[in-house]
């Protein structure tokens, strides 16, 4: 028990450091906030124009779509789209990974806590403001039932965890290529598409939505937001959340496997 307590203290300290590091970039965060808003505005214009001419029934109405994109922009920085999170790559590229390996901590857990610190930061400093300001400008739906909110919170936590696991997995490919901009770009485009970031999966044609349901990435965006919008209910919430958990385990396992393989062939760069 005592050991566990001590270990958690160490990892918490890492998370805190990562949080504080982000705090340094206040102007950048403000710029990011404005950028989030700009994109949100364009999404709203585009979807409003699409819905204006199409009168038939749709799986999501315009207000629901707008709420969906408000959530997308609020949680954007917590998603594994962000190519700039390449500290793992640069650690491998410039050789400072050697220093990290001498520390008596688990490498993957270390990066997890790092991501966790960042996630807390972006939740507080980016997500919350984006969401709160949006409420004033757009018709944002807020779920009334507490069970929906709880289910959404659980699903969102799983989404953020999976995002971290995916990020670590992608960047551990630096052991093989050193420069991960390519591989993260390819994964980025696949994740962007199949998470439902650009178009909610409910609006996709049947065959493509079917593919998305078999992939893990809907768990990042579409699943939690559909729960929020009340589109996934009852027993389906349990199924969706179990699926998210299973994919989480998969990515943590895959990341571990890749890291272990990577260490066994690691050549320290630089000096």
């Amino acid at each position: 028990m005592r050991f566990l307590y001590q270990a958690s203290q160490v990892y918490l300290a890492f998370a805190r450091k990562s949080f504080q590091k982000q705090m340094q970039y206040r102007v950048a965060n403000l710029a990011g906030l404005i950028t989030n808003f700009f994109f949100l505005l364009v999404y709203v214009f585009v979807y409003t124009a699409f819905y204006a001419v199409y009168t038939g029934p749709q799986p999501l109405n315009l207000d629901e779509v707008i709420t969906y994109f408000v959530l997308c922009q609020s949680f954007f920085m917590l998603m594994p789209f962000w190519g700039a999170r390449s500290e793992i790559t640069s650690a491998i590229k410039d050789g400072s990974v050697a220093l990290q390996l001498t520390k008596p901590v688990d490498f993957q857990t270390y990066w997890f806590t790092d991501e966790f610190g960042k996630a807390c930061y972006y939740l507080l400093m980016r997500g919350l403001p984006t969401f709160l300001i949006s409420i004033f400008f757009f018709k944002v739906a807020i779920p009334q039932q507490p069970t929906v909110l709880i289910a959404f919170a659980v699903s969102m936590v799983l989404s953020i965890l999976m995002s971290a696991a995916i990020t670590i997995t992608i960047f551990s490919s630096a052991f093989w290529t050193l420069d991960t901009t390519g591989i993260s770009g390819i994964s980025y485009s696949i994740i962007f598409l199949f998470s439902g970031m650009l178009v909610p999966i409910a609006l996709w044609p049947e065959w493509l939505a079917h593919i998305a349901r078999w992939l893990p990435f809907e768990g990042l965006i579409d699943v939690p937001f559909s729960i929020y919008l009340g589109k996934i209910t009852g027993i389906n919430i349990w199924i969706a959340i179990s699926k998210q958990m299973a994919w989480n385990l998969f990515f943590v396992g895959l990341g571990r496997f890749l890291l272990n393989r990577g260490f066994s062939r690691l050549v320290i760069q630089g000096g």
Partner: protein
Amino acid sequence: MHHLSLYFHFVKLRIRSQMEYRLSFLFELFAQASISVMDFFMIALLFNRFKQLAGWSLWEVGFLYGIVGICFAVAEMVGRGFDVFQRNVVRGGFDTMLVRPLGTFYQVFAHEFLLRRVGRIAQAVVVLLIANSQLTIPWSFAKVGYLFVTLMSGTCFFIGLFVIGATSCFWTVQSIEIINIFTNGGVFMGSYPFSIYRWWFRHFFTFIIPLACVNYFPSLFLLGKVGSSGVSPIGVQLAPFAGFLFLGITMLFWRWGVLRYQSTGH
């Protein structure tokens, strides 16, 4: 002439250094293309469900998308030096440029060349070609010339944005990321007809930041949509020159910024 041959020499060096990470280079070439393919795929998905957007069909929008995509990708390839200029200021590297017997604008311009953007250019060209084959545009010699000028001018427009971003580093040291709204955001919003935006949004992106002149006005002209859009026909004829003018103004801004440069040391 000397400048030009020197430029190509720099470009050759840049390409050679990027080829050092060959596997990564190929990956990124592919990644660049795949990101933009996904982009357009999503637009296609929306049209599959909603059929049309403010009177524009999928391939008319594809035409818009292709033009802005090409302009931006070419600008990123050749104007990369301004895009990453902030690290020169942070590390004081700009000091060395000041003592060399060449103009600073030229040096920064020739400093970088991002070959991997070829992937993105190719994707945009393909979309434009498919769009053209799906639409029946009565091409004439004048229209081809118009398109060519449009592409050149649009590229200048985006380079101009990078120049503004780089120049602001003279004051802020770190680059102001707000410029991303106009570059990446510009490509995103430029992929849709401007008529869907609110008037203040439209006017801002016509008269202050002339994004509408990059692809919307030219597409109106080339697709024969000027009459139904309510845009003045003379404005549409002049639109392709806005990008050149914009770059010219940003170059003056650059000059002014250089005069105010204070080194960070080293």
